[in-house]
Structure formats: structure tokens, C-alpha cells
């Protein structure tokens, strides 16, 4: 159904007036006085563009594009049928093959972006266990990333312990931190929990910032070792450092694949179902014999483990950690990926991480307006696709309606 034209254009007028009220103070108020010309010029362009889009929308509503739509829908339907024919394992292995082949066809810069995307995918999937499955809104998730990063940084610099050994150690430390933070906080529900986790996230960062003797405070820790491995060079095994971006890319890819598999298994396990039950109705879950505090603590600790793994890699890749990397905005970013992608959905979270990390890189040209566009896109997403890019499970039809 299309909206009536008068209503549409009235909405357009209101939106444009509102946009100007927002835009003018940003561009028009200067120390030297007020200015209108520049803001009008930009506003005019946006208004014309929006008007063109609206006209196109109305034309579409009137069926003017029927000649294009019909063939397009046929193609779309055929693609849909084809996609359903292709077995899941085939499409999955295609995705993995593309990911493995990626470094051969791209530049250094692209490797760099891909590594960040994969780190955020792990973070997103970890947070997804907490937020998407168990329904616990955690605004301080990045603290576990920090715990993992500092665990490896300190163990590597002071004791020279290798990256591979530190992965499980950092995972355990993060899980421990998760339990310590979770035990007092998880008795709370909903909004209260969100605020308390926000507080704990900041506490971890501030402790790192001020514990000079251990963490070197805001100066950070330098000289962290890259992951190493033994390589057979024809005559004997020699130790090499995996310093290049391609090598690091494969390490984080392996970690990401491990995370996807682990979270997938968790999703369909008995414990995963208990997480979801707690999210849906805590009291009912208790009446089913679920120890809700223990289950929530487990969800929190499991989420923290993935944060810790990602943090360990982050420290090894940057070879430097400082508290600045673990601010609230990072937590918000990871949460945004989970929500944007679709809570509780693995492909959704991966898409969300791609959208939030890779797209801003693609649109480097808009540098100045990036956050502006970012905000707009988020608002639009929540209006038009509130359950995410790739929602977890399709909601069924109510059985009364189906009959």
C-alpha cells in the first residue's frame, strides 16, 4: 500500500525543515557572525535529492516501473529458488574459500581492514552469546577484550610466554573476570544490569589506566611478541615469527572460524536453549528447574572467553596495548554490530561487523560526515529492519491466522 501523496509531501516538508534546523547551527554559526549561504547550498542539494527519490517512489507506487519490476521479480524469484537448492555446506565452504583466498588478491591495506573485521566478528559473536542468547544487555563487554589483551601483553613482555599458550590462559582470565563482575551484577534485570555493566566496563579501564606498577598506565605496554611457530626449512625445524599481515590474517581467520563453530554448537546445545529460556522468561525457566543465576553467569563467562581470545590476538597484532583501545565507544560499537546484524544470529553478527568496520573504510571519501551517515543508517535500519540485517529465526505465522 502506498501512502497518500499529500501526506507524503507534507512529511517531506516537515523533514526538510527539521533537517535545516539541524544543519544551520553546524555550518552557519561562526565566530565572525551568522552565515546562511553555505548551509542553504548544502540543504538545497539534499532537498532536491530527497524530492527526486520521493517522485521515484510515487512513480513506483503508481506502477510506472512495471516494465522493469516484473522481469526483476522473476529473476529475484529464480535466484531465491536457486539459493535454496544449493546445500548449506556448499555455500559455507564457498564463503570460507573466499576468505582463505582473500589475501592473494588484495593489498596490504585490505588485509589490515580484514583483520579488524575478523577481530570484531569474534567480539560480536562473543557478545552475541550474552546479549542475543541470554538476553543480558552488557554495555561493558570491551573490558574482557582488555583483560585478554593485557593478559597476553604482560605474560609476553615479562615472562616471554608464547601466543599459543596465552590464548587459553587469556580465555580463562577473561572468564574469571566475567564471573567476578557477573556474580554481583547478574541478580539485576534489564536496564539496571545495563547500567551496572557499563560501570564495571569503565572500572576495568580505569584500573588499567591507573595501576602504573603493573600496566604502565596510559603509556601502555610496548614490545609484545608476535605469534611464533616452528617451520621445517628443509634440514631442521626453525622458529619463525608470524609478523606479516597475511600470516596474522590466517591466524585470526582460524580463530574466527573456531568462534563461529563454538557459538554454533552452543546455539543448538542444551545449555544454549537454557540461555534462551532465561532470556524469554526468567521465572518460567526457574520453574523448569534452571538455576538462572548459574546459567547467566555461564553465559557471561563464555562471552568473556571470546572477548579474551580476540584481545590476545589484538595485543599480538598491534604489539602495543594501552587503555585507550578499551573505551565505552568500543563496547557500543560491538553492541551496535550485534543489534544491526540481528540478535542471536551468527551470519547476522558477521554481516553487522562487516557493515560497521568495512563500510566506513570503503567510504573514506566522506571522512568528515562518516559519523553523520553512520547515525542516519542506524536510525534507518531500526525503522525498516528492526530485527537486524539477517534475523535469527523467522517468526512463524500465528496459527489462527494461517487457517
Amino acid at each position, binding site marked *: 500500500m502506498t501512502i497518500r501523496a499529500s501526506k507524503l509531501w507534507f512529511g517531506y516538508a516537515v523533514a526538510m525543515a527539521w533537517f535545516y534546523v539541524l544543519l544551520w547551527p553546524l555550518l552557519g554559526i561562526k565566530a565572525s557572525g551568522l552565515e546562511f549561504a553555505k548551509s542553504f547550498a548544502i540543504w538545497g542539494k539534499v532537498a532536491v535529492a530527497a524530492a527526486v527519490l520521493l517522485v521515484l517512489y510515487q512513480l513506483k507506487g503508481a506502477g510506472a516501473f512495471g516494465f522493469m519490476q516484473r522481469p526483476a521479480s522473476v529473476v529475484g524469484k529464480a535466484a531465491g529458488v536457486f539459493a535454496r537448492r544449493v546445500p548449506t555446506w556448499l555455500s559455507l565452504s564457498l564463503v570460507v574459500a573466499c576468505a582463505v583466498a582473500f589475501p592473494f588478491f588484495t593489498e596490504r591495506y585490505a588485509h589490515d581492514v580484514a583483520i579488524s573485521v575478523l577481530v570484531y566478528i569474534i567480539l560480536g559473536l562473543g557478545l552475541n552469546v550474552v546479549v542475543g542468547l541470554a538476553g543480558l544487555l552488557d554495555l561493558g563487554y570491551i573490558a574482557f577484550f582488555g583483560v585478554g589483551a593485557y593478559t597476553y601483553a604482560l605474560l609476553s613482555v615479562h615472562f616471554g610466554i608464547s601466543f599459543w599458550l596465552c590464548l587459553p590462559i587469556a580465555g580463562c582470565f577473561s572468564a574469571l573476570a566475567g564471573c567476578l563482575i557477573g556474580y554481583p551484577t547478574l541478580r539485576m534485570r534489564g536496564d539496571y544490569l545495563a547500567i551496572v555493566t557499563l560501570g564495571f566496563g569503565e572500572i576495568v579501564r580505569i584500573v588499567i589506566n591507573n595501576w602504573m606498577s603493573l600496566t604502565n598506565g596510559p603509556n601502555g605496554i610496548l614490545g609484545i611478541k608476535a605469534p611464533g611457530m616452528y617451520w621445517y626449512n628443509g634440514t631442521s625445524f626453525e622458529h619463525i615469527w608470524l609478523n606479516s599481515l597475511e600470516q596474522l590474517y590466517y591466524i585470526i581467520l582460524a580463530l574466527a572460524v573456531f568462534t563461529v563453530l563454538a557459538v554454533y554448537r552452543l546455539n543448538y546445545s*542444551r545449555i544454549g536453549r537454557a540461555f534462551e*529460556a532465561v532470556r524469554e522468561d526468567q521465572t*518460567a525457566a*526457574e520453574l*523448569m*528447574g*534452571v538455576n538462572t543465576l548459574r546459567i547467566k553467569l555461564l553465559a557471561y563467562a563464555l562471552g568473556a572467553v571470546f572477548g579474551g581470545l580476540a584481545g590476545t590476538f589484538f595485543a599480538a597484532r598491534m604489539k602495543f596495548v594501552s587503555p585507550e583501545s578499551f573505551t565505552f565507544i568500543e563496547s557500543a560499537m560491538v553492541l551496535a554490530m550485534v543489534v544491526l546484524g540481528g540478535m542471536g544470529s551468527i551470519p547476522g553478527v558477521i554481516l553487522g561487523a562487516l557493515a560497521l568496520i568495512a563500510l566506513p573504510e570503503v567510504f573514506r571519501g566522506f571522512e568528515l560526515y562518516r559519523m553523520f551517515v553512520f547515525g542516519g543508517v542506524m536510525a534507518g535500519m531500526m525503522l525498516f529492519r528492526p530485527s537486524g540485517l539477517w534475523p535469527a*529465526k523467522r517468526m512463524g505465522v500465528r496459527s489462527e491466522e494461517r487457517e
Partner: protein
Amino acid sequence: MAEPILELKNVTSAYGRIKAIKDVSLKVYPGEVVSIIGANGAGKSTTLMSICGVLKPEAGEVWYDGQRIDGLASDLLPPRGLCQVPEGRRIFPRLTVEENLDMGAFFRRDAANIEHDKNRVFQMFPILLERRKQHGGTLSGGEQQMLAMGRALMGRPRLLLLDEPSLGLAPLIVQQIFRIIREINESDGVTVILVEQNANLALKSSSRGYVLETGNVVMEDDAAALLANPDIRKAYLGE
């Protein structure tokens, strides 16, 4: 008569400072169907919540199967055979029907028997088998009630607490639900406590009944006697 499977001794429960039930005592013997009837706000649901530990009684004792259970965490009771179909059904809306049933058997580890019990539930409520892949929240009210009952049965209860199973359902569905209640009582030997506003229906399918009024037990008798009692007929059966 045998030892009661459940006994409440002078239980008082409150929400904050407001006492919802005062000095409630009741006994339920194995194999019985006991209904608790009363008007809105008489404390029927509060009584159930005090039994299953969602609400901790302020005073009094709750004994189940020879052990004192008041003060126990509510998640410890289903493994002992005390399961509840809570008020408003409270199924998990975004889990599928089958996952909802699996949650009912969460504390059990005997996979083969769980599968058997699930088939049994599907036999009792064939509609659930049809809808097994559907989300719980997409079911109609009656189907949700069946799902809630099936979920509770998945815990192999010895004592089943049912809170208002007929609320908001079509008469035909209500009849079906009550037929199942009688069936699980008679053929499985499950003891049932039935909390109902629909006093007529509840008393007809139970052996004994308690009448609650403003948080007190005002009457207790055989179901048939309560049904015949002129006061009860006037107050709860609309005559």
C-alpha cells in the same frame, strides 16, 4: 489415610507489607485432585507461588514428600517431581514448541525416556505435534495452554500445580484440557492441585476442594459436598 504428599502449615506470604495469604493450611494426599477456588485476589496464585518457592513465605512451613521445602530455591523442586503450569502459561515465545517441551525436561539426563515422554505429550495434544517447529509465541491461547501443560509433564511430575488452566479459553478447549487433567491423574497417578476461578468445572473434576477468601481458607470439604453447599453455589457458581 496415607501421609500427605504436600502439606502447608499456617503459611503466611506477603508482597512487601501487604499480606496476600494468612495462616493457610492445607493437605494434599497422593493421587488426589485438589482444587483451590476463590474470587479474584483471594490468594490462590499466591498459595501456589509459596509452594513452589517463587515467593518465600514469611511464616509457616511447606512440607513436600516428607521434607521441608519452604526457603528452597525454586529450581530445586522440579527435579523432585514438583512441577507447575504457571499463571498466564508463560511459555517461551521465541523457542519452538519442541524446544519448549525440551526445556520442561531440562534437569533430566535420560534421553531415551525424554523422547518417550515427548511422544506421549504429542499423543495427548496432537496439535502440538503439528506445530512442533513453530514458535511458542505464534500459538493460539488454547494451544499455548496445552504446550504449558505438556512442558510441565515433561518433568515427570508427581505433584502438578495448575494455575487457572481454563483462563480465557473456549469452552471446547477447556473441556479437552480437563479431560487431560483427569487422564494424567488416573492413568499416571499424578497428584494435581488445581487453582481455578471456574469453580463448577474445577470441583467436578476433583476429589476435594479448598475455598479461599481474602487470604484465608474459609472452607474445606469433599468436592461433591462443596458443589452441593448452598453458600458456595451462591458465591461461586452464580446461583
